[in-house]
């Protein structure tokens, strides 16, 4: 049963992931990306990471994707007017990406990642409480220093977005 769910989720993730790349209309791409995030959240639940699954849906499928949609609609990119790329660059991209794929497959097919052992399994491991313990004990410093990252991004966004004297009014 669980295995069938896993294969179904994999199928859904791969199909919607490739549709993000292949669909010509950017709005469809974003919608398929939302589907991808939902199916990845399904994987998280299978891995017993409930909190991560919820956060993934709230933050990515909720907030970030809405932002993507807004930007695409504001910029009016939903016309099918992709810039034409030369065949040479398409060819080079296919070869480069293909080589990476071959190397990944060749290396990872030999990997023996071990199997699932029921006796050593802690069902509480993905709960918010345990996550909080790890985050605020072991990983306190990166957690706090992430605020510097946000401060830089915020100060930068305000600086770049603020209207200066003599600038054009839209």
């Amino acid at each position, binding site marked *: 049963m669980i295995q069938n769910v896993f294969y179904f989720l994999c199928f859904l993730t791969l199909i919607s992931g490739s549709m993000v790349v292949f669909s010509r209309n950017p709005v469809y791409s974003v919608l398929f990306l939302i589907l991808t995030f939902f199916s990845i959240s399904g994987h998280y639940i299978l891995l017993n990471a409930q909190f991560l699954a919820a956060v993934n849906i709230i933050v990515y499928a909720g907030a970030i994707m809405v932002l993507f949609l807004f930007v695409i609609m504001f910029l009016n990119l939903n016309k099918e007017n992709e810039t034409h790329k030369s065949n040479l660059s398409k060819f080079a991209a296919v070869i480069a990406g293909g080589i990476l794929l071959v*190397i*990944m497959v060749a*290396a*990872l097919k*030999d*990997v*023996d*990642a*071990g199997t699932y052992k029921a006796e050593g399994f802690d069902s509480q491991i993905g709960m918010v409480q345990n996550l909080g313990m790890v985050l605020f*004990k*072991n*990983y*306190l*410093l*990166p957690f706090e*220093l*992430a605020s*510097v*990252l946000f*401060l*830089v*991004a915020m*100060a*930068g*966004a*305000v*600086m*770049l977005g*603020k209207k*200066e*004297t003599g*600038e054009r009014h839209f």
Partner: protein
Amino acid sequence: MTSIILLSVFGIINLFLGFLKSNKILLPAVIIFLAIVFGVNFLDWNNPQSHFNNMLTIDNFAVAFSAVMVLSLALILPFSRSYINSGNPHLAEFYSILMFSLVGAIMMVSYENIIMLFLGIEILSIAMYVMAGSHKKELRSNEAALKYLLMGSFATGILLFGFALIYGASGSFNIAEIASFSSNTTATDLLPMMEIGVLLVLVGICFKIGAAPFHFWTPDVYEGTPTLFTTYMSTVVKTAGIAAFYKLVWAVFPGLNEFWYPTLVAITVLTLVIGNIGAAIQTSFKRMMAYSSIAHAGYLLIALTSFNDYSENAVLFYALSYTVATVAAFGVLKLVSDQREGETYEMFNGLGRTNPLLAFAMTVAMCSLASIPLTGGFFAKFFIFGSAIEAGAVWLVVVAILMSAVSIYYYFRVVMAMYMKEPVGEKVAVDGFAAFMLIFLSIFTFIMGIFPGWFNNWL
């Protein structure tokens, strides 16, 4: 650790200082803040300790490289006079973002956990994306910011994928545990996963330091970014990236060195050749400096391929001498290009007659970058090549020396333009602080060239 806290706090204080009516106080305040951080940083000298569950280790390596980076920011900022005079409304934000980005840079040289490295790289990169686009009304600056952001995010994605695979293989983010996993030859089941991770991390970091063949963003971004921040990119970002890379290959992946060594050597040779040949065919001085920074990344990578008693000190000495010379060169470029509109070699014509001081400082900087004896750059390359020969990579040194010979051609083009061509414009006005800094940088270059021992056995 204290320096990270102090820099964050001072950055916030500096944001608030921006509310004052006059922006004259900002530059002295930042210089004082940086001086305090520079001093406090040395309290941890010879007193290695790790903080917060082994997230961060402040050892002599971290202290020395932090000192170089704080010093370079303090050397760069005096050239921001034109921003103060033009009443730029975002001056406080500029200074604060640069100080916050130093937090990221210090994290990159003192990490004990891969998460800290990643966070440090991101803090530094995001600050740089903003600074690249800080000249909002100029199209080149917008282009630089967009290019840097898009390519940088892509490289970050590759880097993160690499870290994820390494975590998946070794089961830990702690660098000591990753190192013990990678040197443990019995656990071969997960080794291919680890190796792919190492390769992807190599790609990501090489992008960040601008090593070939991941250098394509460098010329465009360096050219479009306002000169002050280009200086910061080619000194602090490069120093932090190389130090992080050094620690990564020798403290995190030492067990796999037979695996990544050929890749790294190939990248080094490519970087040396592409950087130097690329610089030789440029017509814009700023683009030439961009390619020259690629070339110098190549020399620094030589030290990375050789791990012995000399290589750590060689990297530190090289970073310091390269920083001093680059700040002087970009400082003169900024002063001249603010008044003569343009960044080509022709702009420097006759500078030796109109502004002897600027021409002298530029000549010293170029000599140092081309590693002429009596300047810091000579001993920088001497130590790097010495450590490479000690490690047995003689052919690598031969390639590097050939490429240094090429570099003399393009560095001396600007010297010839300054002293042997007719002046193209008026005397360039130089404020007192910038003139003092240029004299200081020239003297510092000579001191490094005449008494290299003072700077060479810290670590």
